[in-house]
């Protein structure tokens, strides 16, 4: 039984029952024959059952979206934007519930959950500017004297979004506000591991008055994903998940002629130069590596202190990491929560074991961490030192609270490592040198570059980066890229005779 503390926030609900799908403006039963338990990662208790919906369920959602589309696309952009203003207000009103559900279902601490919901709202706010964002342009005599040329951006129809467990609220919002604001209809497929907040979101979307069928939600796993990739009436797919699945989704959806944008995994390097202000940057590095228990595609994973910075950084970092309070995310004094599932906990622990077996020195060992009153899936902050490039922990994405310290001789070597990595999601440099920072920014091949910042997460009005095996596609989520992804350009050349 979990111990109550004065700083423990109440859960919105203890148990959310059997989840349904939201199709055509109504909650409907899934045709699923298989169900998955959704557990609270801190307590290990089941808090919902998730239907593993079939391709037929996906089809029902697509038909509802298709039926709604013509009328929705004819709704003027300013009118479409107003739905988002209403939704934004509702999300502000229900902010705390949304954040608590994220914390309860995913495990991240309440501060992080609030930060995540904030980012979701920011995407709604940006999408509400759609009349400006999707404007075309025109040029008189652009084609020839007396012949004008213009470009229009038009919606395509039905899009679908498949989101991962690590940001159960935010990632769907990287996509759907832009898709729907530009005049498309949407089918959301949240992660089957923590889908609860999207259930709450769908209720708010409904309350905001979006016409039935404009936003639909189907719970499920592999069958639902395949149903989305293969469906002839879905024009495009947005996805975030592991690199392996991202590749599969990209290839499968593209083979059916769809537009696809797929975010994948990462292995992000934090480079510390000897001139970095350690007292100032170590808390930021801690947040980068251990925030969301390391389950973040922008998380720092490899740490390199150049020259004499290595020992000093490792010492200060390890000291700070050892003080992190691990526990249930709804306890407001906790600084790191559990990982998502028992299976994932075993995977992360396996990586630490493997690192040790391959010769890494375990400076801080999170394998034995226990949280009184909470039998969930905790892994304590872990620091591995003397990690060499050939070790598994140097190459694989661990997706857990593990920092691997490596040594390199120079900034050139660090940049070379980043550029040779199969991943290209993010890379950060900590330095007081503008020249070094500029050099790093210019040369490092990663979609998000942090300068004295370990989580370089693009705001809603910028595209969320990713290169190489960290992103498949061309147009990224969020901002102007998203507006282009969800619209087709049409050139009109006019001659009056």
């Amino acid at each position: 039984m979990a111990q109550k503390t004065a700083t423990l926030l109440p859960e919105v609900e203890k148990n959310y029952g059997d989840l349904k799908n939201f199709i055509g403006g109504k909650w409907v039963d899934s045709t699923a024959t298989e169900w998955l338990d959704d557990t609270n990662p801190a307590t290990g208790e089941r808090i919902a059952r998730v239907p593993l919906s079939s391709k037929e369920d996906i089809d029902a959602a697509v038909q509802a979206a298709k039926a709604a589309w013509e009328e929705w696309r004819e709704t003027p952009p300013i009118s479409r934007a107003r739905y988002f203003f209403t939704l934004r207000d509702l999300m502000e009103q229900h902010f705390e519930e949304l954040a608590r559900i994220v914390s309860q279902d995913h495990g991240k601490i309440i501060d992080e959950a609030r930060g995540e919901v904030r980012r979701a709202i920011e995407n709604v706010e940006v999408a509400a500017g759609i009349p400006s964002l999707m404007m075309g342009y025109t040029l008189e005599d652009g084609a020839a004297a007396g012949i004008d040329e213009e470009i229009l951006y038009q919606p395509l129809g039905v899009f679908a979004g498949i989101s991962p467990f690590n940001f159960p609220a935010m990632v769907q919002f990287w996509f759907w506000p832009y898709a729907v604001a530009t005049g498309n209809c949407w089918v959301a497929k949240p992660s089957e591991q923590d889908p609860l907040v999207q259930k709450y979101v769908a209720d708010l979307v409904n309350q905001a008055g979006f016409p039935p069928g404009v936003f639909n939600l189907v719970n499920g796993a592999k069958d639902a994903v395949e149903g989305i990739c293969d469906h002839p009436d879905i024009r495009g797919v947005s996805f975030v998940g592991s690199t392996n699945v991202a590749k599969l989704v990209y290839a499968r959806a593209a083979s059916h002629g769809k537009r696809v944008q797929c975010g994948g995994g990462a292995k992000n390097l934090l480079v510390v130069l000897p001139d970095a202000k350690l007292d100032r940057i170590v808390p930021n590095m801690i947040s980068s590596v251990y925030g969301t228990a390391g389950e973040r595609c922008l998380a720092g994973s490899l740490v390199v202190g150049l020259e004499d910075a290595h020992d000093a950084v490792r010492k200060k970092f390890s000291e700070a990491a050892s003080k992190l309070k691990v526990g249930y995310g709804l306890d407001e004094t906790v600084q790191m929560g559990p990982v998502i599932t028992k299976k994932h906990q075993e995977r992360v622990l396996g990586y630490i074991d493997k690192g040790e077996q391959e010769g890494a020195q375990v400076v801080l060992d999170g394998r034995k961490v226990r949280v009184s009153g909470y039998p969930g899936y905790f892994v304590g902050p872990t620091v591995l030192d003397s990690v060499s490039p050939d070790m598994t922990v140097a190459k694989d994405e661990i997706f857990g609270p593990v920092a691997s310290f490596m040594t390199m001789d120079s900034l050139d070597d660090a940049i070379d490592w980043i550029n040779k990595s199969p991943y290209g999601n993010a890379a950060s440099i900590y330095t007081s040198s503008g020249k070094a920072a500029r050099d790093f920014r210019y040369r490092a091949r990663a979609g998000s570059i942090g300068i004295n910042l370990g989580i370089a997460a693009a705001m809603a009005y910028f595209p969320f980066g990713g290169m190489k095996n960290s992103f498949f596609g061309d147009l990224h989520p969020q901002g102007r890229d998203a507006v282009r992804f969800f619209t087709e350009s049409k050139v009109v050349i006019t001659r009056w005779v």
Partner: protein
Amino acid sequence: MEPPELTNFGSLVRFAIELESATAVFYTAAAGLLGPGRSAQLALELAAQHESRCGLLVRTRQQKLNEMVLEPITGLDGRRYVFDAAASSVGEVPGDAMALETVGARLYEESSVVAKSLLTEAARTFRKLSDENVRNLAALRETFQG
């Protein structure tokens, strides 16, 4: 009360809301104890102000955070902000009120320094609240001692 654990932004704001809420209750009770007059009027005004500050803190927690820079907080010693908000007798109201405002001023001043490099907008809010506590102290001195 036990010293609060101020380990991150959420726990800091939570404690601040507790302080504001308790202070508002204190002033409401104090106004009742003081009876009609200038002192009771000031107590009621301060009760309303502290109640309204709870809302400001909730908005700050909701809108002035950025998950990119949610770093653990170190350097705030909870023992410095322990407070007692029980209004026991008319004679103790001035001292208790000034003690509460002093704790508030200290909490927000020191929090604004911690938050400055993490969440600049939140730091501004804390500074504003600290300044307000200092002004409240002056008003209390003028009313009860002047």
